[in-house]
């Protein structure tokens, strides 16, 4: 059985309130007790409220990554569990799965059974962010004794016990403490056994419990603001406002979908996978009027490793890719999910079933946006981006420090390759798409670990040639100073299957891992690095867009001048000959090579 995709189980939405949800597709003018301008004010106030909720969480979090990169999501939901507004923070993997997760809380704890002072928690990967480190905490808000809304936020816990985020876990049981849908605070009274269990199961209890308190406080900040503005405007709840916001958003999303011609648009993306077994992501985007369906039928099956993806995470990244391509300006709320239905066969890598291991779900989930955009390339040639390196590269080193030999170190960092090109725009070099995760400066890496970086530069010729060139990736060389062997876990993708180009553009260059030692390290397999060896990582470049023969020779000249593209590659891939003594295009030689162009 496939789960209902893309949004809210319709039965729950409709059982909660008796209203006609028929879609007449015209901009809705639902009769409201408030005028147009008041609506705009209330909407902006609601968005401000969730931004304040997020700011409170960021401010009080114990976890550097939450504060540094805003790696969290915060939102307000109506009585029906529909997300009405969301803060402008976070990664797509937190934001969208949380949006669709509230219905699960309300199935377990129906809205009118909740009491003031209740706080709910879960980290169920199949209901929220597909990783048990991501804790979601929800708090109902009461006005005159009636639950009128819920605030929720989702935040990455520093630790959740178990093996940590190893990609080679065999089941979710190895990945840490699993918290089903629970009441964490009951009518104002903390349920101490839950706190005790968490405290006893994690490696950093101060920080993890501290962050849970921050999450609770953030929801309270949001609730306080919401109640005070409802009072100011004399509103009993947000139901009417939510209808208006969600319906308008849905109408805007439907209008964007209507601009895409009806049809079935297909694509396939192959990525390295594990142990010489590539993973296939296959998708069909079906446009019918103002409905959009993404079906991942035909994709690889789930694997006995920690890279499986729960459907809600698949949906989160897929929705994100669709939104980037067709409606970046439409707000993210329940209305933007409604016209989109995303499915994958149960037991496939993109809809893995419990108890599959899912800790490394980003290693596969990050490729969903590119796959969907590839499918839409013919329908929306000016709006989609060619695939890029897509999956963030995560390097984990672990080993003995020097000296007495008992102390050990562990260090993790993230790196970005090149993004894909699109109509009218080259790809970005060394920028994380879709995850948006920041990298680490070399000086900080050296200050925090026994690593010496020898080189960190853009990788010449790594961007896929095209009328618009793919973004360049980067090359890093480093060695370890401990004088002892260390172990490298490298979560690297696209080392065998490069990022494809679009509309006649060429693929980017594949990634590569090597070291100047006899036994070569292998991506995704724990590899030993010998003392003194220099490890070299070359990340994958982004795919090109449009035929390289049509690239403006002036752009090729600028690329060669900057060393982004070599003189040889300019001639070979673009048919443009550069006079590097005078830094001009050799017009005659170029004309000879590019009969149709220039």
């Amino acid at each position, binding site marked *: 059985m496939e789960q209902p995709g893309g949004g809210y189980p319709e039965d729950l939405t409709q059982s909660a309130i008796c209203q006609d949800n028929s879609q007449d597709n015209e901009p809705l003018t639902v009769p409201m007790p408030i*005028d*147009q*301008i008041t609506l*705009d*004010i209330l*909407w*902006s*106030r609601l968005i*401000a409220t969730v931004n*304040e909720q997020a*700011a409170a969480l*960021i*401010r*009080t979090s*114990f976890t*550097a990554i939450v*504060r*540094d990169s805003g790696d969290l999501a915060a939102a307000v939901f109506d009585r029906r569990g529909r997300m009405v507004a969301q803060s402008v923070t976070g990664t*797509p993997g937190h934001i969208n799965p949380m949006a669709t997760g509230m219905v699960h809380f309300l199935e377990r704890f129906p809205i009118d059974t909740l009491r003031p002072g209740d706080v709910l928690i879960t980290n169920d990967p199949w209901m929220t962010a597909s990783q048990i480190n991501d804790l979601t905490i929800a708090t109902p808000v009461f006005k005159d004794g009636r639950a009128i809304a819920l605030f929720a936020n989702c935040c990455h816990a520093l630790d959740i016990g178990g093996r940590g985020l190893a990609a080679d876990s065999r089941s979710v049981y190895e990945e840490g403490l699993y918290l089903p849908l629970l009441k964490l605070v009951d009518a104002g009274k903390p349920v101490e056994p839950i706190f005790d269990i968490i405290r006893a199961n994690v490696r950093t209890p*101060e920080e993890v419990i*501290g962050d849970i308190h*921050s999450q609770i406080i953030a929801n309270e*900040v949001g609730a306080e603001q919401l109640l005070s503005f409802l009072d100011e405007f004399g509103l009993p709840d947000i139901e009417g406002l939510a209808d208006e916001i969600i319906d*308008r*958003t849905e*109408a*805007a999303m439907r209008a964007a979908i209507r601009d895409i011609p009806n049809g079935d648009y297909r694509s396939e993306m192959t990525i390295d996978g594990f142990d010489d077994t590539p993973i296939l992501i296959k998708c069909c985007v079906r446009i019918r009027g103002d409905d959009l369906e993404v079906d991942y039928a035909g994709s690889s099956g789930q694997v006995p490793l920690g890279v499986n993806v729960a459907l809600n995470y698949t949906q989160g990244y897929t929705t994100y890719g669709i*939104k*980037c391509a067709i409606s970046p*300006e*439409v*707000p993210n709320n329940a209305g933007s999910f409604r016209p989109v239905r995303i499915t994958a066969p149960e037991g496939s890598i993109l809809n893995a079933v419990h108890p599959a291991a899912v800790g490394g779900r980003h290693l596969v989930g990050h490729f969903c946006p590119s796959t969907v955009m590839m499918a839409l390339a013919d329908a929306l040639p000016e*709006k989609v981006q060619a695939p890029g390196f897509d999956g963030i590269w995560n390097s984990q080193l672990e080993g003995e420090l020097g000296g007495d030999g008992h102390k050990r170190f562990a260090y993790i960092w*993230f790196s*970005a390759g090149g993004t894909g090109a*699109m109509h*009218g725009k080259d790809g*970005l*070099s*060394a*920028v*994380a798409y879709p995850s*948006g995760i*920041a*990298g680490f*400066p*070399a*000086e900080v890496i*050296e*200050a925090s670990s026994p690593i*010496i970086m*020898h*080189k*960190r*530069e*853009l990788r010449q010729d790594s961007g896929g040639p095209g009328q618009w060139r793919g973004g360049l990736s*980067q090359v890093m060389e480093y060695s370890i100073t401990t004088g002892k062997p260390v172990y490298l876990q490298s979560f690297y993708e696209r080392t065998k299957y490069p990022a494809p180009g679009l509309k006649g553009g060429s693929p980017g260059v594949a990634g590569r891992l090597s070291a100047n030692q006899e036994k070569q390290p292998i991506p995704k397999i724990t590899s030993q690095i010998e003392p003194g060896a220099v490890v070299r990582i070359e990340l994958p470049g982004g795919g090109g867009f449009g035929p390289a023969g049509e690239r403006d020779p002036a752009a090729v000249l600028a690329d060669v*001048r900057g*060393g*982004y593209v070599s003189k040889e590659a300019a001639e070979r891939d673009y048919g443009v000959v550069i006079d590097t003594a005078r830094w001009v295009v050799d017009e005659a030689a170029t004309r000879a090579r590019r009969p149709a162009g220039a």
Partner: protein
Amino acid sequence: MGRTLRLGSDIGGTFTDLVLASDDGRTFEIGKVLTTPDAPDDAVVVGAGQVMAAAGVTGDAVAHVIHGTTLFTNALIERKGARTALITTRGFRDALEIAREHRYDMYDLRMKRPVPLAPRHLRLEVDERVLVDGTVLKPLDEASVHALIPQLKAEGVEAIGITLLHSYVNDAHERRVAEIIAAALPGVAITVSSDLVPEIREYDRTSTTLANVYVKRIAERYLGRLQDRLVKEQGIEGALYVMQSNGGVSRIEEATRYPVRLVESGPAAGALAAAYYGALTGHLDLLSFDMGGTTAKACIIDKGEPLIAPEFEVAREYQFKKGSGLPVKVSVIEMIEIGTGGGSIARVDGLRRLQVGPQSAGAKPGPVAYGQGGTEPTVTDADLALGYLDPGFFLGGRMSLDVGGAKRAIAAKVGEPLGLDATAAAWGIHQLANEAMASAARIHAIERGKDAARFPIFAFGGAGPVHAYGVARILRSSRVIYPLGAGVMSAIGMLTAPLAFDFVKTFPGSLDAMDWAGAMRVIDGMESEGRSIIAKSVAAEDIRFQRFADMRYRKQGYDVRVPIPAGRLDTQSGAEIKARFEEVFERLYGHVIPNTPIDILSWRVIALGPKPELTLPTIKAARGGAKEALKGHRAVYIPGERAFREVPVYDRYRLSAGAELQGPAIVEERESTVVINGPGTIRTDEWSNLVVDIPKT
């Protein structure tokens, strides 16, 4: 002479403001001349002449000129600086372009990265390597430096930034490279990263170094010329000081070495004015609110001082989006800026939502009401349509406004699509602008652990007094203070700025195992250098020092700036520094983290001169109350009644001290209009400030 006259001058986008004041309060002249973008010093020199003439003094009476300008910011935004090269450690020339690898906008596939100030073919490398502890892995190969010289010459490079890895712990290689380059290329501007920003993180350090050297020649030429002209044309021999973004001033010798420290000078001076007026009127905590033509800025004044941040960004690709600009690691008065100003354009988006800004009609064509060809309705047009501005008294009558045109544009572009009449649409524009500013201010406060509702608002800028009451009501703030001269606050703020010079030095260690003798050597070194710089202008006994440490819990990404004690530091100081760190951390983040080691990364010293005396002119109390200030009545929109009502309009210059009015009311001055479109008690104090108390609803 007996008394000291000082001249503050601030160049803004449209006007150059001047204030000439004496320390005894007898002279206080305000001047305003149109900015002269092609030669900004013209307006300063002309304006200086005007205010001196008005005050009846000549140039020899002026002891100091304090100057602030957006010239360097504009050069960075418009990329009109020098042809700039970078010299760095081999293998790392792309740190500048790899930057942080993140996305500052989640959904926009057409997101652009800031273009590096040094193009890739001018990012050159030398053979050398210093490690994180300062030891040398590979000595500097001087031949590799000499090898670059022909290329630098051939390319016509005018400015060179030098940033080598870990130079913040060992600057020997950077200095040697600079010596070789300076000897070979005498006319070229050079900035060495360990001089300007000796802090870890190569991208931020390189970005700051290049931004500095990129505008260095512009600063030298401009400030030199200005000083010359003030002497020759106005007879002002007194020293020229330049306003810095950290709220202090510096002599032009230092200012031209570190021009990147001047970038946010205008807004910084505005915040200083807020702090000054706050102290004067007994409000040590304030929310400074400055709304101009294109943006609004909010800044928290905490216990009499503006908050200081260690870095900011210039030249943002997305005007107000964090992460879209060039990071600059210099101290700056911390503020939030959003794209809401008088010129912000209102439009209806695809979701039939009314949106205000960040697109702006700017000064040209400006709002529809200016009649200079603007067709898109703006916040100023809405303010006019609501009766908040007098079409015949804009800028004191210098410009007449087209009310009909403004209303028609609002009706056509906003009213019709939304099914609203022009008044409802205008109110929507006004109020949504207020909502955006209130929301930004509230988040700015929350991020700093403050509650915006507790802060009185200090309103200035051309549009600030028009909107501050509405913003205060949204924030539930109970008081708004409107200084006289809303348009010249930055120039006034400059007159309150002390000489200040910032130093920072990285000398890391764990708090419980700190090398205190080493730390004291670092601090003493910075203090003695600061003393020698400040002592050029003030008596040695007037020099003060503030010390800070950048501290963090081990493994936390953020460090916080902690004030630390004066005097000799040793093992005994550890407990007090820890307590101060926890105090700061708790204020910022709401908690402390027990049982976690604390590290110090860098040490900072600010050397300060004395705060100059500024005495504002006072006005007399008069028995007549407000009657004689009443100019008449006009119909203004009262949101509480959803209707226009005739309200009294007062002439600000004729309000006497102690005069008390009741809202709704309008109080007009030349550069702005105080709009109280609801209940409130309006008092005039002895310095002509209006203090408005808003009743709780």
